[in-house]
């Protein structure tokens, strides 16, 4: 059985991905733009989608634009930024009711596609510049957005780990860019970046819902046309610095210490041993049956959360836990011991089997949401591969204990970061 059947069509300047499914009462359209992370452009690029989503020629104020969306049965429309490996990805997502479930039969999909095209290709521009007021307002909000990362200590400590661990690499750049770069952005410089992004980025459009492929293709062809391009691809992976383990302590006024530990996996999405790495992460820290949860939380009672996750396109595995300051040594020791256990193959057949079952379940659940489906399919765009979900699952199921032990040998501890309270200074 095929879990997702995706049709991919080459369009003018972009690829169109259609997944026809009857399980949703809405249709989802997601536009994705991908370019290498770059220190020079990261802040411009991060600001761009927020300016584009706030107005256009046809909807010159955000009130007019939002009124239009409300009238469209409260279509939800938002933008999102992500780092996928060394790439900076912008998403515009529109979710719109399927008129099948409404008494009003207005063709909402067509209107939705028109709207998305309007936002992307008809911005509120005069004399080669975005509208000044909008840019200034969005700059102000963007500074607040960057600043707010500091206030959520769980997010903050994760960002700090990556910043320290990947110093000198593109991946260390912040997804929202740099605070001190925002003021320098002008309505002109942002518009010239807009033109650059739309002529150079790798572009993809996803349409998920109870739709007709022919209708969607015709609609996309009618509404969205871009110049042909050869997207920039980066070398597989960039690792700067030596192999010494870095230890960073940062003191702030916090009650709970945040411990974040970064490993280099040296394995990327789609590599032969990638599937074994997924299982390894599951046994080690991905779930509530994993070694970290059992040993840090259930046995030692040190934390409420202790987990690990992978960054598949960058080759990182990151552990996070919230602990009391005085338990730092004990927690680090347990986390390291459990990694040694993985390298020695010290895990049971049952741990292996249950982890595979849970990974399988998690993936199948993810594709029960349109956004989840798109995130899974987009891995192939980022990695320039063509791995179906079925293939992914089969390969994962095949991973043996030997495969896992083998991939564990590649994993290297890189950085231990601890955000700790003032009393730790005394």
């Amino acid at each position: 059985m095929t879990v997702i059947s995706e049709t991919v069509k080459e369009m003018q300047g972009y690829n169109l991905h259609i997944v026809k499914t009857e399980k949703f009462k809405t249709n989802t359209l997601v536009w994705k733009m991908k370019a290498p992370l770059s220190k020079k452009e990261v802040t411009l690029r991060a600001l761009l989608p927020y300016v584009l989503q706030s107005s256009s020629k046809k909807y010159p104020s955000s009130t007019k634009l939002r009124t239009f969306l409300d009238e469209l049965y409260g279509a939800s429309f938002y933008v999102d930024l992500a780092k996928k490996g060394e790439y900076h990805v912008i998403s515009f997502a529109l979710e719109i009711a399927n008129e099948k479930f409404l008494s009003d039969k207005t063709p909402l999909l067509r209107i939705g596609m028109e709207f998305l095209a309007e936002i992307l290709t008809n911005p509120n521009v005069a004399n080669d510049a975005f509208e000044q007021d909008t840019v200034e307002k969005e700059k102000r909000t963007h500074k607040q957005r960057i600043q707010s990362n500091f206030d959520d200590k769980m997010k903050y400590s994760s960002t700090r780990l990556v910043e320290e661990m990947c110093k000198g690499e593109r991946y260390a750049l912040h997804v929202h860019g740099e605070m001190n770069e925002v003021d320098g952005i002008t309505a002109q410089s942002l518009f010239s970046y807009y033109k650059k992004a739309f002529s150079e980025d790798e572009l993809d459009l996803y349409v998920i819902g109870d739709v007709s492929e022919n209708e969607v293709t015709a609609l996309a062809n009618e509404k969205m046309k871009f110049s042909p391009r050869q997207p920039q691809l980066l070398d597989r992976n960039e690792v700067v610095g030596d192999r010494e383990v870095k230890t960073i302590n940062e003191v702030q006024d916090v009650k709970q210490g945040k411990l974040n530990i970064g490993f280099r996996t040296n394995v990327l999405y789609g590599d032969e041993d990638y599937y074994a790495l997924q299982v390894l992460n599951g046994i080690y820290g991905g779930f509530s049956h994993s070694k970290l949860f059992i040993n840090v939380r259930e046995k030692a009672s040190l934390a409420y959360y202790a987990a690990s996750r992978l960054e598949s396109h960058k080759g990182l595995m990151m552990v996070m836990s919230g602990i009391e300051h005085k338990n730092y040594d004990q927690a680090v020791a347990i986390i390291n011991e459990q990694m040694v256990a993985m390298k020695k193959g010290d895990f049971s057949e049952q741990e292996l089997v249950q982890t595979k079952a849970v990974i399988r379940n998690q993936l199948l659940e993810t594709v029960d949401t349109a956004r989840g489906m798109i995130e899974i399919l987009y891995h192939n765009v980022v990695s320039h591969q063509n791995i179906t979900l079925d293939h992914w699952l089969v390969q994962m199921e095949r991973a043996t204990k030997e495969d896992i032990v083998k991939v564990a040998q590649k994993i290297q501890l890189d950085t231990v970061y601890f955000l700790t309270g003032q009393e730790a200074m005394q």
Partner: protein
Amino acid sequence: MEKITFEQLQEELYYEKLTNGLDVYILPKIGFNKTYATFTTKYGSVDNQFIPLGKEEFVKVPDGIAHFLEHKLFEKEDGDVFQQFSRQGASANAFTSFTRTAYLFSSTSDVELNLETLIDFVQDPYFTEKTVEKEKGIIGQEITMYDDNPDWRLYFGLIENLYQNHPVKIDIAGTIDSISHITKDLLYECYNTFYHPSNMLLFVVGPVDVEKIMKQIKENQAKKPFESQPEIKRRFEAEKKEANEGKKVLEMNVQTPKCLLGIKALHHDQSGMEMLKNELTTNVLLDMLFGKSSANYEQLYNEGLIDDTFSYDYTQESGFGFAMIGGDTSNPEQLVARLKEMLFAVKNSGLTNEALQRTKKKKIGGFLRAVNSPEFIANQFTRYAFNEMNLFDVVPTLEKITIDDVQRVANEFISEERLSVCQVIPKKKIRAVL
């Protein structure tokens, strides 16, 4: 078994009340991989004074005990239920709110087996002094985590301002001190009182065979000897109408100030259709006033007082309820002043039918989007049912709201004496980096 059809939504819901009092609902979802099931008791953090089963006097239990019990139910003599679920390819979880404790799993295979595990583990408590002590360390870290979270502190700070006596003002997890008084005997007392099937609701949603699942649940329950239980007696101290305090400012280790304005509910004794209509109408009012397409939103944004963290919501339960409006802001005092102006501007007139129609369309579309999610259906249906409301009445009730209804709610709900403000502002000192 009763079948309820929702034609416009193309959904069917099956219902049966079992002889032991358990309410069972099944909603088949074709095309989905996942089955999601919740087993919920009408017992949350606010239920801290009650007459225990078989006793005659009211008791007051330590703050945070409902949440503590939720944690401890996962531990059994032969190990941890999380382990069992993951062996069966499921992921399990639980949560405690003010009024409910829910246990749940989702799985894409072995649904019957997982459902059996869910029902059995919730109906088979195993508490010992040793495991209770161990949990105090874990929950202690959960509490500390929330102590560092400015949004959580802001939210509870505002509820504390609004309520003087009602236990809604107490943090769901309690405090490190309050949980130190929890014992295994107290846990059993709460469990025996609140986990009887007649106080619980089981909801299953997913690609399931309805007949088979219903049969399984009935057989499972028939094996367990539940004696019928008298109605649970809960007690809440009298609460004044006005907000308890008008303002609170918390200094925390943040860079951006945060501000929430709250209004205490006017009606504390509604349920059923009356509650549904009041809750929806108040939410419609807030959306007309502060939605992204409103003139107010644009003004606040242009004035630099709000950003994309701005939100608003009204929620109502038996005994308490509140509206909350706000988010991150560069200027909390100015934001409060502007929000008040905007609220009081519509107190006697000023709402337009055009805005109402737009908000209704938006909310109907939002509901369609929400019913894509099995989690939403199961959790919200349960919440509605515990308040004698029906989730699937939302759209027809929304459709019937008139501009006069909204204006009436604006007139009676917006009131200076039931209004309060909470702010989180940066501590006046510089962070040290080593």
